[in-house]
């Protein structure tokens, strides 16, 4: 059995996958994210929670530079992926996004076949050497996404023909297919019913050992269910971060407590 001090030591020897140092995001004059310091680990699901407009989605989008597509969005500070600043001029954003996958709020499968949806990423990045290995990637991605059994006989059907939950798992399979190291999820279940939500959450659990997963969610229960680490944002600032159990039983900050217990802020 480890005693407390030893446990702490162990923690510090694990290298964080992604490190944020004093990250600020501005939209024009709006200071959306204010000085965030945060470590994300490969074996953990990190949940970002906070009221709407607190900057959590903005921060999420910084991690694969999806903010680049928004005019007058400025990101300052350092975001290191395996120790390299992803905002460095030498970083190729195309490569970055392959390594840092993303799943969106609303399922957005392409209006193509299920197979082509999953094969899209490997094809553009040239990951599969031939048709056979592409087939393998598609199968294993769908399997990891828990969708293989449901769709293996209709890979040529349109991805849009699937149910909402299946669509979202297809999008996750699509993201996994390029073997990302980090997966960002922006309220992935907000458009889904409880059963579909449960399946996606089960999938997140399943994936949690293999990828650094960051999930933005408005459902506190979901954050509590799927994450090991929870970060609370308020008005663009990080108020508290910690083990999910600690945040949900004994938050240190009053604002965190007020938010998660549903009190007047």
């Amino acid at each position, binding site marked *: 059995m480890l005693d407390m001090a030893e446990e702490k030591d*162990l923690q510090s*020897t*694990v*290298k964080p996958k992604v490190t944020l140092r004093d990250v600020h995001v501005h939209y024009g004059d709006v200071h959306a994210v204010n000085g965030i310091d945060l470590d994300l680990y490969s074996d953990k699901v990190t949940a970002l929670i906070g009221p709407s407009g607190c900057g959590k989605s903005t921060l999420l989008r910084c991690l694969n530079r999806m903010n680049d597509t928004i005019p007058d969005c400025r990101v300052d500070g350092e975001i290191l992926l395996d120790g390299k600043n992803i905002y460095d001029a030498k970083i*190729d954003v195309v*490569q970055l996004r392959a390594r840092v996958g993303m799943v969106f709020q609303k399922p957005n499968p392409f209006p193509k076949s299920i197979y082509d949806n999953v094969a899209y990423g490997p094809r553009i*990045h040239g990951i599969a050497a031939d048709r056979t290995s592409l087939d393998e990637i598609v199968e294993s991605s769908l399997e990891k996404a828990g969708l293989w059994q449901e769709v293996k006989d209709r890979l040529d059907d349109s991805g849009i023909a699937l149910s909402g939950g299946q669509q979202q798992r297809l999008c996750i399979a699509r993201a996994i297919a390029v*073997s990302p*190291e980090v997966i960002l999820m922006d309220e992935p279940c907000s458009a889904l019913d409880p059963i579909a939500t449960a399946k996606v959450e089960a999938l997140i659990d399943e994936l949690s050992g293999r990828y*650094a997963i960051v999930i933005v969610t408005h459902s506190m229960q979901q954050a509590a269910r799927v994450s090991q680490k929870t970060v609370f944002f308020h008005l663009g600032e990080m108020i508290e971060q910690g083990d999910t159990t600690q945040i949900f039983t004994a938050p240190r900050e009053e604002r965190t407590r007020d938010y998660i217990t549903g009190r007047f802020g």
Partner: protein
Amino acid sequence: MTDYQPFEHEQDDTGVDWNSPEMQARLHRRNIGDRFFRFVGFFAVTASAFFLVFLLGNIAQKGASGFLQTSIEIDVAFDADILPDPTNLEKDAFAAAVAQVNMQYLIRQALTNRFPEVTGRRDTTRLTRLLSSGARAQLRDIVIKNPELIGTTHRVSLLASDEIDQVVKGNTDVSVDEANRKLTDMELGWLQSLESEGRVTKDLHTRFLTSGDSREPELVGVWGAVAGSGLTLLVTLLTAFPIGVFAAIYLEEFAPKNRFTDIVEININNLAAVPSIVFGLLGLAVFLGLMGMARSAPLVGGLTLALLTLPTIIISARSAIAAVPPSIRDAARGLGASPMQVAFHHVVPLAMPGIMTGTIIGMARALGESAPLLMIGMVAFIVDVPASINDPATVLPVQIFIWADSPERAFIEKTSAAIMVLLFFLITMNGLAIWLRQKFERNW
């Protein structure tokens, strides 16, 4: 604890080695592809802008001088023997008497006085051709206005002929061989001599904006066509606007959703894409053939253009009406308004800015339209400015078409100038539409 290994997460089982040379080369290729795409797109936009600038610049460069006109000052002896005596004549009678006088004689006299070396019938005729055939009417007007000139010699400024005008403006290349140009060296010599005396002037050509068509380029004006366009558009507006708005109100607010209204809707969308010349054929067959209306009249032109603009107006009015939020209708209905009252008291007034914008744009399109009007005979040569919707008339774009077809070199600048007038009206109308849209733009 010593056997503990830090996590090594950089490689997954299906991991991709992004740093391999193959992958780096691939990335490089893909990024070049992206830049190429962006460049082609940028080129397309630039090319479009270039076309526009080239087109407008070309027109403006050709047309600017169309607003100027060369005049030549000559010393005319207002011979009392030829001209009537104003002292014992009524004003009208005097004018009628002056009109009888051969002004060409006075002009010839004045010119031969200036160039005494010119003899012979052919050369004298050439000499008088320095001036426009409109110079006679000009001189007549001067005499009628200033009877006191009779018996004196006075320097008057008269319109130069189109060929002279073009030389003065530098539009005609005088360096080519004499055989290949209209003006002889002799005529150019006269011109030079006049120029050296400062008798050749270029002035703003108000006549161009105030008179009707003519066979002579230096005498033409766009006013006839502008008036024709105005009358035609008036007819178009008065017919297409109420019918279009009524139809839009019916289709948006009252029409039952059934097969028939579906057909009406599809039909309207298709009508909007029917070539304009087909509407001309319809106008020809129905308004002229069947109903026997007068050819070349703004009435027929306006009705034909109304057929053409009706779909546009219906479509834009419908979208303006559809943009009024249902909550307004619910509110009015909740107060006990009948469907008609809801439509006419609430929905239509709120949609009016949008309807007006669409209508103005439709009208602007009708203003620029010429093909269907060719079908119904608005392409005739008409000197008089039309005063009513039944007078023969032409419209600005057709006037442009007619002039563009004319062989005289001077018509190029007149055509271009007329295009500038047309574009001025179009820009004004579109500007008005944009202003309306911005002033009344509402985000529900």
